[in-house]
């Protein structure tokens, strides 16, 4: 030995002397258990061998001691001897029934063999590695529930192998029990600090071995179960998020693209959550009648979005019984009859529905409890006048058997119509108070009403009031520019 340190030389000597005696003890205990299984209680010479081996171990620890060494306990004899079985609590049935796949890592083949045989007797599957390097290769190749890791080994010692395991996300959850001689207690402490689960002193006490392995496997089983639940929750959350996104894509996909001719129509839509209760559309009913509609289901989220899509699809497909879709009053009466809130999860909606007749430049419109559309009319002096386009009518789905009326008005050339939901103005101002429809919202429209990007401008105005990127309510805003001439 080239190590000039007398303490470590002494430790190495103790290790070398104890190793064969530990083998004798280990094998003799296994033999004793085999004999006991066969009903033979008189162990004869085997018992003498065991006693002699234990005495020899005691001698090694008491004589080969270095007073300067902090590693040796003051009274090594009781600790060096196997812990009396009576002082150890019997393993619980739970521990006894947990069998695992255990990797035994020790540079000495007989050490591995004794330990593996004992573990197999306890019902475990075992594999063996001769040093830390081989252990890491085997751990990378197949799954293990537990590693029994010797500290002193050539090539790669147990402490280094443990460091690699704990630094590897794929291996760090596998519990490691350090195998140590009693004078390696300092190394054991540092291994525990590095994340080792426990330690087992040599020579192995069968009951202690069973208890510590059982406890480690049980912890591993709980940890695996926890990981499995976590994985399951993550999968479910991901699936739900994917499905919500898919639904949100569908809700957005049924919104019509902006158009240029014969009207210029622009819009902005931002749901409060992934799924909103707003929806809108516009389409030609025939060659001279163009329908424009926006609806807002109370609340938002999945339930509101489902009702919103159901109602908007009725309008898009024109599928209301005996209804002239050129007559807004008839359409709302039909919707009200079809979407009574008692049959639709106690949800109602508001709607503004208008039909522009290009032949007469007349806008026919009706409202189901919806905020009024606003018409911006240019004056001769270049000023703009705002007026509400609203026909009285209550929420859709609230009262059965009611009729909705339409109103009509001629649209002047170059007029601009705004159709929107209440989320465009029911927002808190910087002082925390709700904005006022007349003094805040209409004033903004009066000042910015001609902006080509008005739907986005209103949204930016809302965000300037409240920096929270998630709106309290869905936001929908449509502008329709009517042409100068028919």
């Amino acid at each position, binding site marked *: 030995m080239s190590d000039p340190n007398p303490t470590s030389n002494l430790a190495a000597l103790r290790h070398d002397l104890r190793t064969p005696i530990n083998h004798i003890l280990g094998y003799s205990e296994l033999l004793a258990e085999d004999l006991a299984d066969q009903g033979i209680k008189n162990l004869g010479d085997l018992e003498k061998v065991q006693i002699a081996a234990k005495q020899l171990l005691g001698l090694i620890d008491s004589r080969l001691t270095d007073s300067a060494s902090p590693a040796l306990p003051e009274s090594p004899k009781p600790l060096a001897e196997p812990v009396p079985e009576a002082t150890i609590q019997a393993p619980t049935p739970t521990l006894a029934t947990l069998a695992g796949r255990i990797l035994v890592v020790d540079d000495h083949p007989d050490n591995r063999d004794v330990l593996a045989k004992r573990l197999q007797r306890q019902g475990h599957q075992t594999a063996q590695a001769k040093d830390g390097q081989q252990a890491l290769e085997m751990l990378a190749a197949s799954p293990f529930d537990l590693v029994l890791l010797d500290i002193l080994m050539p090539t790669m010692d147990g402490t280094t192998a443990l460091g690699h395991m704990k630094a590897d996300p794929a291996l760090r959850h596998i519990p490691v029990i350090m195998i140590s001689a009693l004078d390696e207690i300092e190394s054991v402490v540092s291994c525990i600090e590095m994340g080792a689960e426990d330690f087992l002193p040599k020579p192995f006490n069968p009951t202690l071995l069973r208890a510590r392995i059982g406890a480690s496997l049980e912890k591993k089983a709980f940890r695996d179960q926890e990981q499995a639940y976590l994985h399951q929750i993550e999968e479910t959350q991901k699936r739900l998020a994917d499905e919500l996104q898919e639904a949100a894509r569908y809700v957005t996909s049924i919104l019509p693209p902006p158009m240029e001719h014969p009207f210029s129509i622009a819009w902005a839509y931002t749901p409060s959550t992934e799924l909103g209760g707003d929806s809108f559309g516009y389409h030609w009913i025939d060659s001279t009648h163009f329908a424009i509609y926006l609806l807002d289901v109370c609340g938002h989220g999945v339930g509101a979005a489902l009702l919103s899509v159901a109602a908007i699809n009725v309008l898009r497909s024109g599928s209301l019984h005996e209804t002239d879709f050129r007559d807004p009053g008839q359409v709302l009466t039909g919707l009200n009859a079809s979407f009574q*809130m008692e049959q639709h999860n106690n949800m109602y909606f508001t709607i503004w529905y208008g039909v522009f007749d290009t032949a007469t430049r007349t806008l026919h419109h009706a409202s189901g*409890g919806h905020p*009024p559309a606003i018409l911006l009319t240019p004056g001769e002096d270049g000023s703009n006048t705002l007026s509400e386009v609203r026909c*009285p009518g*209550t929420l859709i789905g609230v*009262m059965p058997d009611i009729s909705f009326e339409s109103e009509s008005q001629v649209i002047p050339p170059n007029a601009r119509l705004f159709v929107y939901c*209440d989320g465009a103005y029911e927002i808190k101002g910087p002082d925390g108070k*709700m904005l006022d429809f007349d003094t805040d919202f209409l004033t903004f429209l009066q000042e910015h009403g001609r902006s080509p990007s008005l739907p986005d401008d209103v949204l930016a105005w809302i965000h300037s009031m409240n920096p929270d990127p998630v709106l309290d309510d869905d936001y929908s805003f449509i502008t329709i520019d009517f042409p100068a001439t028919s």
Partner: protein
Amino acid sequence: MNLRVITSSSHPATIALEGSLDLHGVEEVETPFLAAISAHPGAVVDLSQLTFVASLGMRMFIAAHKILALTGKPLIVFSPNPQVRKIIHHSGMDSLLTIAEDETEARSLATAG
């Protein structure tokens, strides 16, 4: 969001809604409000301290209206501020609710009804 039920020897009781009937306000107050409406079917509702009604708040009034309709009584509210009055007007709910200018008118409408 607050709900106060003021019962006195003089019929009917007054139910006062104070604060904002937004999503959180409705969650807080809907059940006790509807319970109070059921327990005091002739009650009048003081909206003078109500600052806002979101769509789910409107649904709460619809539910109250439907509970009262079973006993043939109207839902009488009074003294909404201009903003709340505007929200009720836009929603067309003024055809379902009876809106009184003040408590005296509300009580007189309730006892006449």
